[in-house]
């Protein structure tokens, strides 16, 4: 008798029928297992949420009064007919991959992840599995990151030259994840103080409250930046005059993806091409479903490497 699939794709997203839950769903469900608190993964409306403590504190901040059960990394939890555990993804502090075991078959949903250790988020942990659902945001061989120490040097150089010209510097970054990484990398190492946009400050405070070690930084009050200061700003936020601005993102690496943005630094919280390939190999999975990126190209590449791979959306109904 054919086994029921561990994971299926239904209109609300990726579901585990045996466990009665969804992973990072887009619709209203009874139980949402959430990898991390970014808005495209953690959405309001679920009856209950399951997340790591680091993710849970951000869910409460962003989604208001929600029912969240906390499950630390590595602990296994029985959820109906499935066994569930969280494992670090390296994407941001508290971000997790979800390991799901049903009847001896193991699937891991990666969520968003990166393989470089950034000294703040729990480092990516490859988990042995039969099937791996992986993101492929930067799933093309032209995406190769430099070590973050080199990028930090570049940012410092730009920050110094802004200070020397008597200007403030503002670097646009997601308020959850990238902002804390920049704060951790740059605080106290430049010509002036680091200021945080209110949203970034709120996320930083929340993460610090559950034990992450983050430097103190003032909240930006919207006034002109003092010379030598570095503002970690929300993307598309308005900036005061006489401020040099830059963007920190993996998309800054290539002309075709930069989309006319100005100064950029190539700092990403997603795995690059070597990272994706190494991570997939390390899981030992023979079945790979790819999502969240260059799905067609990456799936075809994995097939040509001998894996049973496909875009997740094309596998609707069967995993």
């Amino acid at each position, binding site marked *: 008798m054919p086994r029921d699939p561990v994971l299926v794709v239904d209109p609300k997203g990726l579901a585990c029928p045996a466990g009665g839950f969804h992973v990072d769903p887009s619709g209203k469900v009874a139980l949402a297992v959430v990898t991390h608190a970014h808005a495209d993964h953690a959405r309001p409306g679920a009856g209950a949420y399951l997340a790591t403590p680091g993710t849970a504190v951000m869910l409460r901040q962003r989604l208001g009064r929600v029912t969240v059960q906390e499950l630390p990394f590595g602990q296994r939890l029985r959820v109906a007919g499935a066994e569930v555990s969280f494992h670090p993804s390296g994407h941001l502090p508290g971000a997790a991959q979800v390991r799901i075991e049903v009847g001896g078959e193991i699937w891991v949903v990666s969520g968003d992840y990166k393989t470089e250790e950034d000294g703040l988020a729990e480092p990516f942990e490859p988990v042995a599995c039969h099937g791996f659902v992986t993101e492929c945001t930067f799933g*093309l*061989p*032209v*995406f*190769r990151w*430099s070590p973050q120490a080199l990028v930090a040097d570049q940012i410092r150089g730009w920050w110094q030259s802004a200070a020397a010209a008597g200007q403030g510097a503002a670097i646009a970054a997601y308020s959850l994840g990238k902002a804390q990484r920049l704060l951790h990398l740059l605080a106290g190492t430049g010509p002036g103080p680091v200021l945080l946009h209110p949203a970034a400050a709120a996320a930083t405070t929340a993460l610090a409250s559950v034990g992450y070690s983050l430097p103190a930084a003032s909240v930006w009050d919207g006034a002109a930046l003092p010379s030598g200061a570095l503002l970690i700003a929300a993307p598309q936020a308005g900036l005061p005059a006489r401020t040099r601005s830059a963007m920190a993102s993996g998309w800054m*690496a*290539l*002309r*075709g*993806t930069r*989309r*006319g943005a100005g100064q950029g630094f190539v700092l990403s919280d997603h795995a690059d091409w070597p990272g994706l390939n190494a991570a997939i190999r390390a899981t030992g999975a023979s079945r790979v479903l790819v999502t969240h990126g*260059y799905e067609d*190209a990456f799936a*075809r*590449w994995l097939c*040509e490497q001998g894996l049973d791979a496909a875009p997740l959306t094309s596998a609707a109904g069967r995993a």
Partner: protein
Amino acid sequence: MRAFAALIEALTTGAPAVPALGAYLRSASPVEAAHVLSWVSGQRPRPAVTLAALRQAACRAEGIPDWLFEASRAAAGSVAETIAHLLPDAPTPEEVAPQDLLGQCRGLEPDEILARLEVLPVTVRLAAIRLLTGTLRLTLPAPQIGQALAEISGGIAGAIVLKLETWRPEMGLAALIAAVAPEQIARPFATLRPFTGPAGPVADWAAFPRMDQPRLQVLRRTGPAQVWAEDGRLLTGTRPDLASVLQDLAIGTVIEAVEPQPGVLWALDLLEWRGQPVAALGFAQRRALLAEGCGGPIGLAPAVPATDWAALELIRRREGLWLRRQDAGPDCPWHDWAPHPRETDAVLVHAELGSGGRDIAGLTFAVRSGTALVPVARTIDGLSREDLDDLGTWIRRHATARFGPVREVPPRRLYRLGFEAVDPAPRRKAGLWLRAPRILAYLPDHSPDQVARLDSLTDPALDPRGQDR
């Protein structure tokens, strides 16, 4: 390579050329600067490898199938950038002068060239690849190069000219630059602006045939005679055929001229004459002086007799006219009365999609030649922002093929184009290219079969729409 790569990056992203070139010249060695100046002045270096061969070598080296390279090209922006980003990071990046890299790579196999590229930092690889494959399409006008050299050597801008035509980088920078004494420098050319329409009595104006060629200034003050081009180039050394003309020029003469045919000069205006206050004379009076022989060996440009505006209008519709007020001073403008645009009906065949804010970067139009459609013009001039947005949506929905940012579209949309002239273009499929094309209208009610025939462009008599010219 770093300074060279920074210069290439600045020039290709549209930064002001003179400061970028000045910054480069300050940091580069004279030997390297000599080579780089020869490249940016149009002396393209002989390539060491073709881009296609380098692409194949990169795919082999990284174990990437060509379809995946192609998928990466859209993200990277170009083949050269894809190769630059495909190669792994250099753990200990090396520094090499661009002319040395080029010399080393000549005669090497593509795989060996790739190995040379791998030790370069990613930021300079793109410039290196462009140099090695001969795709460094970057030419700065000589006046800008001269200006940058002048600024860094403390000289007066305009007093440095480049003897580019006979110079090779092995001769060194000193042989490139020729200092010109201040009294041999041309006056600023009077502006040429579009004519706004008949104004005042026609007798107030002098009319001339419209010139395709740029204007020249022929001068002889105290030193040797010189011929300057409108774009600031000094032509004296490259036009020995004019040497006899210059010798016979009286001392103290400055003439604005034009060369309608090779070797033939027409004097348009007398700008200086033996210290006489020419500025006080009107244009008609200065022409009278030229008619008396003050131009020496240079004959007077023939005027178009003007009896009334209607007669002038007929001439300008066919050929165009240059006009000047009879009382104009030497610095007053010339007026360009462009000929009535010719028109043709062409179908849209390709569209280049833009990046950043622009939806469409270029539209290619074609006419019929036999059973095929051949491109004859590329423009977006004449479409409003809304039209471009709507067209962009249509293009994205109906594209039949993609070549990088370019989309092939079904040849269903007919447009009326205006253009100034037909230029011969032997390398184009059609053998010609339209000059100054402009989109006049979209013709949704016309069938695409009503596209013009190619021979109607070369022979207006064949234009079935029988335009009144």
